[in-house]
């Protein structure tokens, strides 16, 4: 009864998680196929972590259907977890042990032999570029190194699916890029990735397919490119105004020029297929904002369109 060819690795229908009266996950449907990199994109509190914890078989399903690797988390949690790799949002490394000991001990939880783990630890530390720190204590390592160690540790059992909950939250930009690079390599090796993030660039870089979550519900699904094509235009013109010069209603200037206008507290976004052309016309019509920026649409714009709010608040 395990997932075979064609059957999704993870299958959820009308999945619900409630904590008392609070509905964290409100009836979501999704399927994860082998070899995919699938993401949950949404702001904090969207229900991403609750979903991940149910998939990771550490949090019971309140309602609906969930099968992981063809098994039922309520009955076969231990068996499922034996085949998952988990990178939790908050590191659970032992700070007092060495880098290598952390991997070996974790591998022992899976019942792997010390001998096999010795070789496996070397290989994994090489992969995350921590081989030189193998015998150092974990505590003084940087945040990015700890994250990489957590990723190495999660691979110790050669998992069928790797669950990554906010894998780069709290890291500086450089450390994030190193983590992304390692995850990208795993993806190319055919490892199935399931990740949550509130960074649209992370979702764009890593996910073949993603769902946008907001307040416990899935509001859109598709590849990053699809979603942008469906819910945004190719270009965005960002206008900033002095407090005094910001017009109440822009429709006089933008009439016939843009597909959609989003007025945010600090700026106005104009969605248009051709940003440069639109900017040119706006000038001709005499609009004089403090600054103008033309850029490509991103998942941030998709999210804004779907929810009326931005991802990072």
């Amino acid at each position, binding site marked *: 009864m395990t997932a075979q060819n064609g059957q999704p690795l993870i299958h959820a229908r009308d999945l619900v998680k409630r*904590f008392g009266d609070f509905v964290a996950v409100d009836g979501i449907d999704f399927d994860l196929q082998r070899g995919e990199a699938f993401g949950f994109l949404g702001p904090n509190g969207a229900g991403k972590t609750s979903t991940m914890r149910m998939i990771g078989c550490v949090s019971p399903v309140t309602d609906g259907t969930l099968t992981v690797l063809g098994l039922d988390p309520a009955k076969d949690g231990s068996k499922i977890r034996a085949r998952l790799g988990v990178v939790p949002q908050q590191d659970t490394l032992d700070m007092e042990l060495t880098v290598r000991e952390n991997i070996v001990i974790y591998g022992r939880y899976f019942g792997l032999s010390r001998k096999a783990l010795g070789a496996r630890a070397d290989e994994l530390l090489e992969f995350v570029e921590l081989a030189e720190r193998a015998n150092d204590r974990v505590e003084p390592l940087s945040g990015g190194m700890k994250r990489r160690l957590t990723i190495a540790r999660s691979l110790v059992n050669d998992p069928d699916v790797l669950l990554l909950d906010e894998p780069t939250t709290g890291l500086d930009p450089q450390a994030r890029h190193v983590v992304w690079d390692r995850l990208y390599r795993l993806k190319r090796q055919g490892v199935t990735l399931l990740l949550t993030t509130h960074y649209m660039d992370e979702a764009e870089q890593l996910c073949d397919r993603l769902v946008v979550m907001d307040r416990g519900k899935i509001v859109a699904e598709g590849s990053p490119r699809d979603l942008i094509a469906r819910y945004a235009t190719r270009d965005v013109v960002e206008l900033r105004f002095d407090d005094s010069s910001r017009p109440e209603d822009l429709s006089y200037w933008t009439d016939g020029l843009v597909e959609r206008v989003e007025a945010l507290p600090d700026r106005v976004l104009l969605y248009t297929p051709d940003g440069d052309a639109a900017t040119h016309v706006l000038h001709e019509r005499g609009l004089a904002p403090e600054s103008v920026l033309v850029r490509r649409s991103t998942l941030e714009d998709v999210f804004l369109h779907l929810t009326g709010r931005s991802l990072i608040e």
Partner: protein
Amino acid sequence: MTALTYTLRPLEYFLTAYRRVWRGSAVTTVVTPVVYLLALGVGLGVFVDRSADLASGVSYLEFVAPGLMAATAMQIASFESAWPVLSAIKWDRQYHAMLATPLRIRDVVFGHQAYFAFRLFLTATIYFVVITAFGAVESPLGILAIPVTVLVGLSFSGPIAAWAAHAQNEASFVAIFRFVILPMFLFSGTFFPISNLPTPLEVIAWFTPLWHGVTLCRDLTLGTVSWGDLGHLAYLLAFVAVGLLAARWTYTRRLVV
């Protein structure tokens, strides 16, 4: 079989972590009984023996040594199962690491308690060697005070781990030590027979696992065992069992949400 190997896996982690600190703890484990026995058994004992009417021919040293052994197990077990358990949930989060793997709540509970049993066994063995060296062990049965001491410890580590898994923060631990552990240490027959207590306190003392443990250890080292000691043993075993069940319940409520 599976159940046992699953329990051994968390134990292996706790032993690995213990290896980093064992030197310091070993010194404490040896020095503590020596200091207590010198002060109480030898120092205070001289006064007591001049006027005491303990059991016939029993010196105060012989009386207090097995009591101290049991009481020390209580202290170590209580301490080890309070902060470290809350830490494994809240601060260093090692239980969460374990529960992301095939390990289940019962493996985490039993694995941690198995580690306490190991620590208690080390402590009890050293304590036994020290009190034997002081000449406080009268009977070869005394060696059985070692497993009994482990049981005394576990009868505290279970309930306290259960409490720690329920506690939101460490504030309650200080209260437990001040109002439960310390009074038990003083009034459960370690230093004087509980028959010397006012009746209400004596009745309370009957219910403490420490009194049963102290009495059992003392009967073993003095060689004064009777059938009644099986009752003490049963009481301790029951306490351990209830503690483990309680811990499994509170661990589940705290960690499986």
